[in-house]
């Protein structure tokens, strides 16, 4: 059978989040590779505390690596890494919180509950992103 184009069946939250989950999943791989490579180049090799390495990789923020024995963390504090941090937190937070929503909605069939949980999640999501952005910019 040949590929056949059909009208789009419609955009909705579930559809968009499904797509977003897959795309962000892919994005994590790239972000992680870039982050990890940079962290290693910049000194994590000497350290190899996995927790720290991961914090570097996923959230390259001076705050985050304070307790390492790498003295110079200033190089992180530039615009590029700030954008990377924001991307990670945006993707991670959205992917993860949406995942949590999916899990909860898997187990609730009552529509009333659903609107409440959705609102809650929305608030949580906004708060988390704002908090993260604040932390990033303030450091």
């Amino acid at each position: 059978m040949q590929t056949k184009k059909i009208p789009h069946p419609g955009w909705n939250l579930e559809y968009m989040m499904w797509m977003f989950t897959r795309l962000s999943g892919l994005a994590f791989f790239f972000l992680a590779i870039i982050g990890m490579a940079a962290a290693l180049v910049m000194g994590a090799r000497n350290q190899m505390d996995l927790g720290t390495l991961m914090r570097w990789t996923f959230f390259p923020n001076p705050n985050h690596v304070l307790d390492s024995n790498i003295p110079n963390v200033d190089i992180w504090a530039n615009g590029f890494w700030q954008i990377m941090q924001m991307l990670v937190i945006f993707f991670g937070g959205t992917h993860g919180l949406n995942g949590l929503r999916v899990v909860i909605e898997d187990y609730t069939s009552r529509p009333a509950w659903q609107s409440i949980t959705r609102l809650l999640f929305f608030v949580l999501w906004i708060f988390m992103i704002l908090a993260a952005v604040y932390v990033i910019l303030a450091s």
Partner: protein
Amino acid sequence: MQVKLTIFRYDPENDKKPHFDKFTVEAEPTDRVLDLLEYIKDYKDGTLAYRRSCAHGVCGSDAMRINGVNRLACKVLVQDVGTTLKVEPILGLPVQRDLIVDMEPFFDHYKSVIPYFVGSEEMPQKEQLQSPEDRERFDDTTKCILCGACTTSCPSFWANGNYVGPAAIVNAHRFIFDSRDQAVVERLKILNDQFGVYRCHTIFNCTDACPREIQVTQAVGEVKKAIATARLD
């Protein structure tokens, strides 16, 4: 050889709670589990209730949980499952008596996905042409006998009875990928929903359970992809 069966019993008229009954029967290795149930019903306990008809895996009456997995009792032989058997009703549908569950919710989901051909209403002069390749495209999902083994093996369905379930998606797939059908987008719209394909998390129990060896998860995946990309391929 002797086979020991532990069978789920529940009779709402007399029992408050379900319990298990044990039976021991003489059997050949090539006997079907259904043959054992028939023997028990004939000679040991006539009150045992279950559904069956064709006895060779084509009518879909006797889906039940045999040693922890959904199977058709007429399609498993003693030699495939061993001599200690635990037989229970399929999960996620209300038990009406013993191994009989209420299939209505299952059929309601089935009916919700436009599970019928939509074409022109005119009286035909000749057949609509379809190439063997186009016919092959949806062959797998035409095999479904609506036994319910897949849907009732799916943890997502257990968790949430609103999920249409793999069987309904399989039957939608059968028409979505039929080159003659004209209601493809309507079906995709129905499945592009919170309780449509998105409740499937590729758990695969459905494919393992399907007695017709339909690639159920693949069918669900193809529908997801058709929705995601607005393409049929």
